[in-house]
């Protein structure tokens, strides 16, 4: 080996050693700077989405390896990238599972419970709201306590409203089953279009 080659090998070795040292140093500083609040929020996103995915399907599906793997994958993606399309995909996965499971369940033993749907709604909204709060926070961002308090307050309000809505719906399904199907569908369509219009208007109006 000539001196030039030896020098080249030496320089390459030194460069690799420097890069390794820098990576290790970077990892150590990241571990030292990591903040608890964003990590816990991301954990909340992952856990709620995973539990929702398990709750959405019949137990025999939920126990299957394929479903657990897919649910974990979606939940992890949503927790790691809360700012992108991952939470939407995870929620869509839960909804599709819920619809397919409902079809399967109806074939076996009737309608799924309204309260399961309410729990699912609560879990999905918790994941959505948490992902919205977390989307711009990095794992090292020191978060003010007031932000967490506001998030908890809002979540409590919306979840309580959802439970109240579920209770109302339960009352309706118990006492107003005699409504004609055409009237129910028309009222539903009007309500849905109203809500969509209001939201779309708020979305497109210059804030």
């Amino acid at each position, binding site marked *: 080996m000539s*001196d030039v080659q*030896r*020098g080249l090998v*030496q320089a390459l070795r*030194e460069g690799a050693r420097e890069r390794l040292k820098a990576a290790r140093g970077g990892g150590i500083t990241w571990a*030292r*700077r990591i*903040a608890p609040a964003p990590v816990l929020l991301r954990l909340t996103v992952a856990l709620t989405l995973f539990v929702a995915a398990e709750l959405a399907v019949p137990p025999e599906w939920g126990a299957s390896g394929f479903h657990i793997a897919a649910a974990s994958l979606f939940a992890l993606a949503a927790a790691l990238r809360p*700012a992108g*399309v991952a939470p*939407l995909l995870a*929620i869509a996965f839960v*909804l599709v599972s*819920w619809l397919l499971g*409902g079809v399967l369940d109806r074939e076996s033993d009737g309608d*799924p419970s*309204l309260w*399961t*749907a309410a729990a699912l*709604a*609560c879990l*999905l*909204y918790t994941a*959505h709201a948490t*992902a*919205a*709060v*977390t*989307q*711009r*926070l*990095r794992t090292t*961002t*020191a978060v*003010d306590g*007031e932000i967490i308090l*506001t*998030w908890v307050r*809002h979540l409590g*309000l*919306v979840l309580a*409203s*959802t439970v109240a*809505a*579920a209770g109302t*719906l339960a009352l309706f*399904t118990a006492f107003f089953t005699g409504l004609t*199907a055409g009237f*129910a*569908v028309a009222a*539903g*369509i009007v309500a*849905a279009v109203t*809500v*969509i219009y209001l*939201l*779309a208007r*708020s*979305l497109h109006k210059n*804030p």
Partner: protein
Amino acid sequence: MTLAGDPALNLRTDNARPLRRAVAEPPVTWRRTPALTRAVVLVAVCLLLGVAFGRVDLVLIGAPFAIGTAVLLQRRPVKPPEARITAMDDESCAEGATAAASLVVVNPEPVAITTLVTAAADPWIALHTGKGDFAESLAPSSGRDMVVAGHARRWGGHHLGPVHVRSVACGGLLETTVQRLPGTTVWVLPVPDWFESAQSLPFAEGVTGVHRSRRGGDSGELAEVRLYQPGDRLRRIDWRTSMRSQDLYVNATLSERDTDVTLILDLQVEAGVSGGVMPIDGSQASPKYGSASIADLTVRAAGAVASHYALQGDRVSCVEFGARGRKMRPGAGRRHAAATLRWLASIDLPADPLPPSPEMMRRQLSGQRGLNVVFTPLLTDRALQLIASLARAGRPVLCVDTLPPGVAPPARTHWTPYADRLWRLGRENTVMELRDLGVAVEPWQGAASLDNVLAELNRRRYR
């Protein structure tokens, strides 16, 4: 070959940065986030599917999204928050201490918002945890004063920034575009090594000071006992000698005067790796230094010597023997010591410097009879020429060797250690030649490291 195809015309200019049009910073505006889009899409899909398939459960699943979005979007901000960054009051801090800048964010809207601040800084400023990357809540129609701070690891002018500020409102459904603040420069002053010298300096010919002069005057240092002359003070009469000799004798004393100390900083080459300093915690009084480069040793040693003599009352001036050739005016006292530290902090070694001229530097120093202290790693012939010419002119020259002890060339071939050894032998030879010329050469070792050579200079002066 046509003129357009001439390859010489396609050569890039010396400026390494390609020409680009200046991009104006876009104004900060509020915009929706993917979370808002997600909420709306989910509500629409759930409601439409629920109605289409007659599923109440889907309506129930979509309900919290509709309720939550409606609640959050009730009050929306219109005007974006204003952020500005300013340096702290004195814009300077000591090595190993905290460098900080003040960030003010004002929320003009009657809606509570969350502000996310992400700061970057020079490699020599290690941002504190929670002071460079944080999220703060801003109450409606209020402002908040935040601090971006980090540990200053090395002297010099360091840039704290850019700082990216982004605000989020309505629970993460709306956000502003990123506002980029260019940041601010924080001056980190070198913490000089502790230097204490009990030796007085040669050529003390100022007005009043602490060094023994060869001129007579009022002080405690006895020069001679001589006959009384008109004008002598009565309290100077030596009664014992007068009684013995029957003539009136007085004790004549030497005056104590200050002197000029000129610090010449050889900043032509840089070698060694600067390791910065560790943070000062309560347990230790002084900062813990990492490895030092030539510039580090030069700046810290010059800071120590300048602070010592300026606080003692001598006039201290500094001159760069390098590409920039800056000068610091002579002065004494605490303020001048602080100003010298600030001057030293702005020392910079250009990558491709013009070599300085020893002759020009020697002419700049002419007319001064004070002590010349040269801080040099003794690596260039020009520095040796300067020192030798000063010594030949009969000026007291003290040479502080600032080559870091562990510095060595990278081992590229198996000849490197031998070449290094030969070079070091040659350097020792040069140091001995300088000593023969009457230059005191001493490596910098902190407190009292120059006392021996100063005593040697004094002996030579008063011999």
